[in-house]
């Protein structure tokens, strides 16, 4: 009993309300490994001087970096249209952020675990649209046009690269309004090329999306700033 009390006090001092017990842990995102390893190898004198309340890699204030896996669902079973490859709801549960944390950055990463590269004479192969959803929608029921706001619209050709989008504004809005209805991702192809059609039909199977969020713990960073 005493040990568990001591443990909970220690966890609390580390900013954790309870002892985590991961159920289906995901692989550690490479970006977090890189930041962790870089900090770990800093000489001790540099560590003490480094501003622990700032994430140099993104040049934003922050002492906590989280990567949220996507918990959304595909809106259609299979390919929604001949040129429309996928329509997917993206949802990131930010409720784990504690009240005393200020969100300073949110970056969406869209990755395709496929290494194919489709050279097309026009150069524009895939078209991506990202919407902020303002309406709930059920599986199989396409979202109403007026229930969403276009955030990003762009073309890309290479599937083996990560696409990064700055969603800091949207994430801050989710937190302020406590109304997080997620995003809607649409990917379509620009023409009916047969190879392209084949890729389009299977793109949903190698899509991987995650949201990296940086927050600043007012409690832990304010104290250190006063001392500095």
């Amino acid at each position, binding site marked *: 009993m005493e040990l568990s009390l001591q*443990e909970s006090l220690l966890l609390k001092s*580390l*900013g*954790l309300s*309870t*002892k*985590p*017990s*991961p*159920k*289906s*842990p*995901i692989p*550690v*995102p490479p970006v*977090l*490994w890189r*930041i*962790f390893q870089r*900090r*770990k190898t800093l000489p*001790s004198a540099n*560590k*003490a001087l*480094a501003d*622990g*309340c700032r994430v140099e890699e993104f040049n934003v204030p922050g*002492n*906590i*970096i*989280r*990567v*949220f*896996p996507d918990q959304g669902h595909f809106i259609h079973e299979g390919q929604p249209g001949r040129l429309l490859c996928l329509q997917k709801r993206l949802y990131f*549960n930010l409720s*784990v952020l504690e009240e005393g944390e200020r969100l300073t950055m949110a970056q969406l990463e869209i990755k395709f675990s496929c290494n194919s590269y489709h050279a097309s004479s026009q150069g524009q192969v895939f078209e991506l649209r990202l919407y902020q959803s303002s309406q709930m929608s059920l599986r199989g029921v396409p979202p109403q046009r007026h229930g969403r706001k276009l955030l990003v619209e762009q073309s890309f050709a290479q599937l083996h690269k990560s696409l990064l989008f700055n969603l800091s504004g949207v994430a801050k809005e989710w937190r302020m309004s406590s109304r997080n209805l997620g995003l809607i991702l649409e990917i379509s192809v620009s023409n009916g090329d047969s190879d392209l059609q084949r890729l389009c039909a299977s793109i949903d199977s190698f899509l991987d999306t995650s949201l990296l969020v940086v927050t600043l713990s007012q409690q*832990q960073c304010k*104290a*250190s700033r006063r001392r500095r």
Partner: protein
Amino acid sequence: NAHHAPVTPSNLCKPRRLYISFSDVGWENWIIAPQGYMANYCLGECPFPLTAELNSTNHAILQTVVHSLDPEGTPQPCCVPVRLSPISILYYDNSDNVVLRHYEDMVVDECGCR
């Protein structure tokens, strides 16, 4: 005062090795890295006269003089951390998200008499 027996260097105030192993405290299933780290702690005497490497404040020097005159009434200054450095911990939270969190003042680099 000549009758003070000199303190052997080894028990002067300085950092002592303390390795914290997260598996020893049963945290290995949610902390991804590091598996443990060298936290250290301060221990040792702050005797009169306080030498430069003991990182002392003027008040600590004063206190050692008074302690040498009145050992029962005034204790020696305390041997405490005077320079600490942070560590970052990678862990899974209760929603299976991967978190990289920076914690200030987790490693004792230097001790001093205060």
